[in-house]
């Protein structure tokens, strides 16, 4: 256990920029934007003359509707940048996870420590599945709180009550809880991709990005070509499988379909799973046949990665 914690620390120290600085910068940008909004509001050409008027207008809208809007914004709109950047961070982190130390030869030092390759691999997977998402989530929550505190202070000086206006409605804890659950559910759902990236990372002699992307592209193109030669029709190929799998991932999105704004779990391309944002639907995905197949695929990828890691010295 001590060793695992030490190895997790090592991953965090090595990737501090990606894991901590990056979300802090995004949070900083959000806060600066919020301040800019407040400072420059009076200069905008709009229907409200001042923030005071805006606050009064808001206070007169329907509280239930306002609560719903705040909830959706907290759950699906504001975290968008965090979500997107997090997926990039995790992608590139895993791609380098078993490659970087082979490239700079520091693998020879890591292997001189009595930590097994399984534990090392586990610490890296855990960093991607748990450490990075939880840090991003915590910094998002912190950003939201700071922005709400700023807005509350402004609203108070305008003589309105921030509690009834936005603080006391919209159930932020539920939104944050759902967001965190969605991050963790996604991490499990996305395991085959994580496994694939670690496998590539463990064997790529150089440019792991190329090795990660090229094989699926080549396979899909071959499939499309062969399929087309045989039947002159286009059916499901690897792209389709990956696309559908990705669309079913339990991430929370806000989209407008048929002029109806809606919160959805994943992208509603197919009706294999319900796309309503509930914990039950997240669990439904994680306990599905698809997930079982995904886990089998992941096991093959990670097993091979571990096999290669045990034999790896330097690239």
């Amino acid at each position: 256990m001590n060793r695992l914690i030490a190895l997790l620390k090592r991953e965090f120290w090595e990737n501090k920029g990606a894991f901590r600085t990056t979300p802090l910068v995004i949070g900083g940008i959000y806060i600066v934007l919020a301040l800019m909004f407040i400072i420059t509001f009076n200069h905008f050409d709009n229907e409200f003359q001042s923030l005071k008027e805006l606050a009064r207008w808001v206070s007169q809208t329907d509280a239930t509707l306002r609560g719903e809007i705040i909830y959706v914004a907290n759950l699906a709109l504001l975290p968008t940048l965090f979500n997107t950047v997090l997926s990039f961070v995790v992608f590139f982190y895993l791609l380098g996870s078993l490659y970087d130390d082979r490239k700079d030869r520091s693998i020879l030092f890591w292997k001189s420590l009595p930590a097994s390759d399984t534990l090392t691999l586990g610490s890296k997977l855990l960093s991607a599945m748990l450490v990075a998402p939880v840090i991003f989530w915590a910094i998002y929550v912190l950003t939201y709180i700071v922005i709400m505190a700023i807005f509350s202070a402004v609203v108070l000086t305008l003589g309105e009550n921030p509690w009834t206006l936005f603080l006391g409605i919209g159930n932020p804890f539920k939104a944050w809880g759902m967001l965190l659950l969605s991050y963790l559910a996604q991490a499990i759902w996305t395991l085959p991709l994580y496994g694939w990236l670690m496998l590539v990372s463990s064997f790529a002699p150089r440019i792991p990005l190329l090795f990660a992307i090229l094989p699926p592209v080549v396979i899909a193109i071959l499939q499309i070509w062969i399929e087309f030669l045989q039947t002159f029709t286009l059916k499901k190929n690897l792209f389709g499988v990956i696309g559908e799998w990705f669309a079913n991932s339990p991430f929370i999105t806000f989209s407008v379909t048929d002029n109806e704004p809606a919160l959805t779990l994943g992208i509603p391309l197919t009706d294999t799973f319900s796309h309503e944002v509930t914990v039950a639907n997240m669990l439904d995905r994680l306990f599905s046949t698809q997930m079982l197949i995904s886990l089998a695929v992941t096991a093959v990828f990670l097993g091979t990665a571990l096999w290669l890691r045990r034999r790896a010295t330097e690239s």
Partner: protein
Amino acid sequence: MNNVIEARGLTKRYKRTVAVDNIDLEIPSGRIVGLIGPNGAGKTSALKAILGLATYEGELSVLGKNPSRDRAELMEDVCFIADVAVLPRWIRVWQLIELTEKIHPRFSREKCLQYLDSTKITLDHRVKQLSKGMVVQLHLAIVMAIDVKLLVLDEPTLGLDILFRKQFYTNLLNDYFDEERTIIITTHQVEEIEHILSDLIFIQDGRIALDCSMEEVQDSYVELIVTPDNAAAARELQPLYERELFGRHIFLYQSADREQLKNLGELHTPSVADLFVATMNGGAA
């Protein structure tokens, strides 16, 4: 079990070449062994097998463990410095110490800090800010603070200046080595480690060309320096190797009659470097 390393028929094949060819090896504890061979002779391949960093054929037992299967467990009792500059460049000294302390059960923080005190390295330095020599000092400070039974040094001083190299071996000998420990060193700078070695292993084309203790070297090998007049007579006595230096002929003999040789010229104990050259070119043992 007294042998730290036991190998029977140790073989390492790469796709086309055989790097280590059916080696038998026994290294008892409390020795400082120089593993010496030309480039590509299979030194590093053999060491990688011993350290559990590579697969191999044959039987190999290090401290009673199977290195390819139990690397992590083995590393509690074995330390190695594989070449200079393998410490991760991003890491800070304090992070390195903390990680090693948490992962290695036999690491002593006090000892490590004590070694670092005598250097210019501070805890806040990143490895990439240190010079090559300082990185080696840091690595050595870490390794010397770990109480292990076997220490493997593969070209530990490559590319360092002579002051660092001398300091390195002095520290190793004075502060680290004792009868309980075994050290294996490979290096190209044979002259510098000659005086600290207790055993010598020459390796050539994946095979062991010579495996003996330094006392045996002194007992059985002798170098004879003669003037050209006596060269023909010396050649008669079946030397292993002959070379010329400043117009004088130097012959190397194994298990020769010293009394007989004395009459022809001056006798010396050969240096490891000379013995190495002779072995590689002529084939002793």
